[in-house]
């Protein structure tokens, strides 16, 4: 059976390590990036089943990356979850406007994040 691929992009190493560990335990193949430029490169190379993006990253922020993901034919339908420390509701609205499927604020509930990720992937396949 094909392993689900996930790209996690965040400039906070603990987020990368923690999410990588829990998604690997859930049977995902995990690729990571710690800035916006690497994130775009990894997404292009991996063609993932799910993308988790931090909003604030060096070079490209989560909004820009999400826009580029939606604009590229190969990744246009890949579910995107945006994780953010930002509290403003405008950020959540903008995230959905640029095509994100979900917006989760940090600190987040890890088990809920995994459940949401699974649901989004299932929805994108049906």
């Amino acid at each position, binding site marked *: 059976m094909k392993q689900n691929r996930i790209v996690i992009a965040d400039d906070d190493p603990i*987020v990368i390590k923690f999410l990588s560990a*829990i998604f690997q335990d859930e049977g995902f193949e995990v690729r990571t990036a710690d800035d916006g430029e690497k994130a775009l490169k990894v997404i292009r190379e991996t063609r993932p089943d799910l993308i988790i993006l931090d909003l604030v990253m060096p070079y490209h922020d989560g909004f820009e990356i999400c826009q580029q993901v939606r604009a590229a034919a190969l990744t246009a339908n890949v579910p995107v979850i945006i994780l953010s420390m930002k509290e403003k509701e405008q950020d959540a609205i903008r995230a959905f406007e640029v095509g994100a499927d979900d917006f989760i604020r940090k600190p987040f*509930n890890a*088990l809920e994040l995994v459940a949401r990720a699974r649901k989004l992937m299932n929805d994108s396949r049906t």
Partner: protein
Amino acid sequence: MTTPQWLVGNGQIHDLVFWLIGAVGSVFLLLVIIIIVSKAWREYVEEGLRRRRVELEPSFFKYVVGQGPIENYLPRPLARKERVLVEDIFFDLGRIVKGSVRERARDAFEKLGFIEHYLEKLESRRWWTRAEAAEKLGLMGSERATRSLITHMDDQVPEVRVRAARALGTIRTSEALRPLTRALLDPGRWSAIRVAGILIGAGDESVEILLQEFHALPMHAKIAAIDIFGRIRSLKAISLLRELLASPDPDIRARAAFALGSIGDPTSASYLTESLKDKNWAVRAMAAKALGRLKEEESIDALCASLVDPQWWVRANAAEALKNKGTRGVGALLAMLDSKDVYAAQQAVQMLQESGLLDEMISRLASEDGEQRQNALDIMAKLVKLKRTDLLTEMAHTHPESNIRQRLAIILGLRPHPRQTA
């Protein structure tokens, strides 16, 4: 002048200088070696800790999303030095996660004896050790530390008191938060802003307690509590805040109005509209500001009436509120251009300019739709009548479309109307 005998001749001085240079050189060399060795040792220790952290992290990550007790997940019993690593891992996790993962981290701290360790340190004679212990207990969020932390809110050192208070704010139980609301009663010992910040961080849990204790609070604490309700945007506080709009104290009424605006519940509009008629101008101003934050339209007529309020602050807030009310609010501002009250009309112009509507009207001067064009021309004529031609003059020189520049120049009288030249 002759050189003294002891400085020349027998070569002893050369030996002395030689040994002196040698000794100083040796000391420097020794210092350099000590610095290099200690740096290398520190890097070696840090590298070792980094490696141990990498080794331990997966076990702790598995534990926080798993089921059993921490002991089942540890690769081996923890060495003393590794306790710092465990703390760091859990504190880092605590920054990014909440819910059950955080609770399991807290359970691990209790099981591994961290809480006992810091409770002991909290009783240290050294204040900085007590301060550090209070901070760590707060980060661990264990309810078992509540009593000791409450005791240390009376510590003789202010820094320890503040860290104990912050720690109680992160524990967030009613037992932990109640002493913080009481701290609001003692402005000589506690900064109200600092305590309010801690209570705001605790969120809805602190609202519950403040609501229970509100009527027993002195005036300055009531004011702080109202601000906290607004900052937390708690729906639970709405009914109290509406009651407070009828308080005999104008400061309370004004702050209650502001807090209702911050919460943003549109069903508060009728209460705030009533406050636009308050006898105190600060209450009216805050009510107008609050209405500008609510997504509703029932207050538009009352806000238009406030544009002729005797106080400029009320008029300014009412105009700004109308700008935020969408098409109907902007329509009301356009109608105010005909107002006999010059100040109200000027406020309306300013808000229409800020909302971007005047730019849109200027663009409509070139519209092919005759009605739209006439509408825009009428508004421009009103602006000229009010002598608010700053934007029009600027656009007459800088607008990218030449026909709009020409039309604006004609409206402003900068060039004659084509019929006049004909």
